[in-house]
């Protein structure tokens, strides 16, 4: 199976003037198409930073990130934006929905920047929202939704552009355990039924069970098992 994502000796160093903060110290690994990857590590270990590198939100200080065989660490900012829009679907811990847009508008939002037909995408957004059980919440604003519902809207938004990879940073971090289980089930379905590659960042070792690949990180280094 081909590597969807490959990191080669990725460093992220924040220059804080007096000190240089090494958040990632030469991380290397790969992810195959259809993998369900869980990134585990304590708080502050660099999980989110790593996820940002994997999802083209940020570029490494040193090292290379290959997405579909292309080195995206040298891409311009606009090129990265296009890659994010086309290939990556994001799910955040704080949901990150736009507060003044309705559920369906939030879901359609990513298509806006791709020049696709809005009408057609609205239909698709409805389908996706229905598939996550939100057909009765289409026109609700985020403030009118529960945490679990918000996260399901966020997952729907991540799916609208039919991305190869779904990345989720602590997707269950802001919901209760029952809802969290439901969210994980959704992600698992996307992986098993639709064959999408899923990367989930968490400090909850419980979630290991969903994965077929675990990446453990501590102080910016991968821990080999």
């Amino acid at each position, binding site marked *: 199976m081909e590597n969807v994502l490959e990191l080669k000796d990725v460093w992220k160093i924040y220059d804080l003037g007096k000190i240089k903060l090494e958040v990632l110290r030469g991380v290397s690994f790969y992810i195959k198409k259809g993998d369900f990857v869980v990134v585990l590590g304590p708080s502050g270990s660099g999980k989110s930073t790593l996820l940002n590198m994997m999802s083209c939100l940020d570029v490494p200080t040193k090292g290379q990130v290959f997405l579909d065989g292309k080195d995206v660490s040298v891409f311009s900012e606009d090129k990265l934006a296009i890659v*994010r829009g*086309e290939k990556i679907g994001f799910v*955040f811990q704080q949901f990150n929905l736009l507060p003044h*847009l309705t559920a369906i508008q939030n879901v359609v939002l990513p298509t*806006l*920047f791709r020049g696709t037909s*809005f009408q057609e995408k609205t239909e698709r957004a409805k389908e996706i929202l229905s598939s996550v059980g939100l057909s009765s919440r289409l026109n609700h604003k985020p403030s009118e939704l529960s945490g679990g519902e918000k996260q399901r809207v966020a997952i729907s*938004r991540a799916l609208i552009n039919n991305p190869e990879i779904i990345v989720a940073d602590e997707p269950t971090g802001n919901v209760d355990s029952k809802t969290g289980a439901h969210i994980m089930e959704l992600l698992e379905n996307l992986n098993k039924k639709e064959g999408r590659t899923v990367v989930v960042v968490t400090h909850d070792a419980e979630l290991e069970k969903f994965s077929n690949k675990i990446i453990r990180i501590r102080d910016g280094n991968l821990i080999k098992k």
Partner: protein
Amino acid sequence: MNTEYFKIALRNLKSRSMRSWLTVLGIVIGIFLVVSLLSLSEGLKDSVMRELKMMGGDILIVYPGDGSDIVTTMMGGVELKDKEIEAIKRAEGVDIVLEMPFTGSVVRHFQETKMALIYGIDLDDGLPLLRDNMGWEMTSGEFPRPGRREVMVGNLVPKDLFPEMMVGDSINIQGKEFTVSGVLRSLGNKQDDLVIALDLDDFRSTTGKREGTPVAMVQLYEGYDAEIAAENIERELEQSMTRRRDEDSPSFSVMTSETVTNMVDSIMGTVQLAVIAFASIAILVGGIGIMNTMYTSVKERTKEIGILKAVGAKRSDITKIFLFEAGIIGIIGGIGGVVLGLLLAISVEIYFSQIHPVFYLEAHISIWLILFGLGFSFAVGCLSGFFPARQGAKMKPVDALRYE
């Protein structure tokens, strides 16, 4: 595609606070000034020009004073005396010289006594001139004939001054009886339409003013160049004045329809320039206000920018969203200014046409001025939004997302 950016911008605007809306006040005031004052000054120019058009190209106007301030000269009682009239008549190219003395006088019509402006006009020479070149016409009755103590009255005299007045009525001017022979068609301004005109000889004998006129109208021989004739008249007048050095020799002006047009143009030009200067300052202030609120807006929505970038927004997309927002703020200010400006212009027009009619002033409401006002305010908005928008677009997605 752009309509979606437009919708996003609109939605963002709805969530704005009152305070941020107040910053568009500068735009409102600026566009208000431009629309109202330019409409009115254009309208004023139109009505002056309309009158000038009645005055043919081979008519000159001569009056004392140096031309810089007609109003003061006329009020100040400086007059052209018979000697000067003779001098004008001598000038080459001059066919007829028409004195037009006027004065306020008590006029009685049956039981009613009022103050009215009476004009003296040489009915033999002057009437044809006024008829052919200035568009004087009768709506009822006939032009007065010399030697018969007849007068003609302006179109508003039977309406405003002496209601019920009819052709054939007799009126009493400073104790002397005259017959109203006819009513003039409107001459385009209130003052002229309230006139009572009588034969020059009657005017002289009735008012006791033996000579002098604050203004003289000159008709040239057909085809004679107005500018050359104006020079001829000036030369003759200068010679006649040097002959009486003992008196303080007043200056005088000869105006062709062209010089009047130019003068009106330059006065209005100055007024409009001043309006534009004030408006520019207001609009500049408005623009700075928009820039300010847009910087705040970009800052407040840092997280949102991060989200948009995460889901694929390029720098240009973010720029567009904020530019649209700023542009819409600008155009909303512009709409406010246009509406208020038109309201003022129309109110002034109504005031002069119905409540206090001194002269006809019709606001010149140009669709282009309105479109310009809206387009310009949109452009100012966009321009003011440019730097804030660029700042937003430049944010790195990770930093923007981390922003709390």
